[in-house]
């Protein structure tokens, strides 16, 4: 293991200029690069946010949640049902997504968070699958027909707004949500004693309890919060793509992507899901657009996962920090296994 000074810290003031530059680029992105790149931006921002939502429960708390994608679908259908079945504007659907995901995730948290490791992973996966099957046979979700959401200017707040509900609008909506998720993660998990308690619980639950930490309460709080974030993105996504179907918004691949993005980027870090989210999403989308292949990125991702698990369990962020240990593969795998209580 080597201690390297991050590149940006070697140049005085570079970090500040880097942040200002990135901020400016994000602000002007859709206006400068047009609709195609705005759509790429929308997808990238959404996946970064989703990967961060998974990182809260998976990375910071150490619970291998394989049902997280269900909350993306719950958010999507909450917005869809509110708009299509009840004629409410999107904002009502957005609020409904938050409330419903909070209620459902709490009910799921009570029994499943008694489990750890692979048992928790299987239980949450089963929950997500049952949600998908339920949505396929339930009338209010449109069943196998899905739902088509309205997107006219009066569907945002109930009265017509003086701008178009199109790519630029959704880009800024996703940007706001993504930055909000990042800010929330930074404040709660990196700068707050709550975050220390979450990490303490992940590292040693008994020791955490012996130090006054109510671990049952803490893990439920993290789980519900992370699920609400996923649902928020699901609700905006539903409105953006206009048509939702259980096989799409409740598909297991949504969870798989979140896990892979957080793992590749760096579990339990603020910037890991950004790096992992960008890498996986761009590899997938750009290989699809420019190489005409929707599967080309899969072997690449598989190889990257193996490299990460074997040599760099701290992911891309760990590599950038110089935390690469090629010599001790067994320790690297053990470290990752211990993180999720799999050993």
């Amino acid at each position: 293991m080597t201690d390297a000074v991050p590149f940006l810290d070697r140049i005085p003031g570079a970090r500040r200029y880097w942040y200002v530059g990135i901020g400016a680029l994000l602000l002007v992105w859709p206006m400068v690069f047009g609709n195609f790149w705005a759509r790429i931006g929308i997808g990238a921002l959404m996946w970064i946010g989703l990967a961060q939502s998974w990182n809260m429960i998976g990375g910071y708390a150490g619970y291998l949640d394989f049902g997280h994608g269900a909350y993306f679908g719950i958010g999507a259908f909450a917005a869809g049902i509110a708009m299509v079945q009840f004629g409410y504007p999107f904002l009502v659907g957005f609020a409904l997504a938050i409330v419903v995901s909070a209620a459902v995730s709490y009910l799921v948290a009570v029994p499943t968070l008694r489990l750890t490791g692979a048992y928790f992973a299987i239980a949450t996966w089963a929950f997500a699958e049952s949600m998908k099957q339920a949505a396929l046979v339930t009338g209010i979700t449109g069943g196998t027909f899905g739902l088509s959401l309205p997107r006219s200017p009066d569907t945002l707040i109930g009265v017509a707004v003086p701008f178009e509900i199109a790519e630029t609008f959704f880009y800024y909506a996703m940007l706001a949500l993504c930055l909000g998720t990042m800010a929330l993660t930074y404040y709660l998990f990196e700068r707050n004693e709550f975050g220390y308690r979450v990490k303490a619980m992940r590292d040693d639950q008994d020791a955490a309890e012996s130090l006054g930490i109510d671990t049952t309460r803490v893990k439920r709080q993290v789980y519900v919060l992370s699920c609400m974030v996923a649902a928020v993105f699901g609700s905006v996504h539903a409105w953006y793509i206009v048509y939702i179907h259980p096989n799409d918004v409740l598909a297991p691949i949504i969870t798989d992507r979140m896990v892979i993005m957080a793992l590749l980027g760096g579990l339990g870090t603020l910037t890991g899901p950004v790096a992992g989210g960008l890498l996986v999403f761009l590899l997938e989308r750009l290989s699809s657009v420019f190489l005409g292949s929707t599967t080309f990125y899969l072997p690449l991702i598989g190889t990257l996962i193996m490299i990460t698990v074997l040599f760099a369990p701290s992911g891309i962020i760990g590599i950038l920090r110089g935390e690469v240990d090629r010599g001790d593969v067994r320790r690297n795998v053990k470290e990752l296994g211990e993180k999720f209580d799999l050993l």
Partner: protein
Amino acid sequence: MTDDILRTTDLTKRFGALTANDEITLSVERGEIRGIIGPNGSGKTTFFNTVTGFYEPDGGSVHFDGDDVTGWKPHRLARRGIGRTFQIVSPFKNMTVRQNMLAVQTEDGSSREEKRDRAGEIMEFLEIDHVADNEARGMSGGQQKLLELGRVLMLDPELVMLDEPAAGVNPALESRIMDHIHDLNDDGTTFVVIEHDMHVMKTLADSVSVFDSGNHIAQGDFEEVSQDESVREAYLGGTTAEDDEVPI
């Protein structure tokens, strides 16, 4: 009349057919350092785990500072004033030393700044302040023991239960740990200490409780228990020892 800070009455813990603690009745006086000794498997750590809420007792009761705390959750007992460490040192290794200290949750209403100040004072007292911003995983075993003690002190506990504080620690650091325990005891903190090293126990403990096969078989100062026939029986299996001390 004695001022007991901890009192267990007929405390029993079973694991299937095995009775790990069999009706243990034991009192710890406020301000003392109580040692607990006994052969491996005699039920010392089970006693710790049952008193601190990690195991649900199958019978009996635990009273702390006058309150019946039987069956309380570990975090609630910790906030009430019982701190403990574990046989295997358990730092939160992916966090810095300071973050380890700040993770501790109390109900004393102290502000964030007060808590940070307190963490700083404790780290200085334990002489680990120079590694405050290092990750705990990089600390030596002895430093990790000090960190574990430091985290417990963040609770501002009235009673501290230490499970083998000197195990795997070099003599210099062992001496430092013992000095810290004495200093804290002088300030009024009560200690219950499990320790296999009889030289440590002899110099540290005001009184000693001896466990054997889940039973509390003897209590007294170190010299008394080392002369006790039942203690010799427990350690030597009935063989008569030539010398006067417990030969371990």
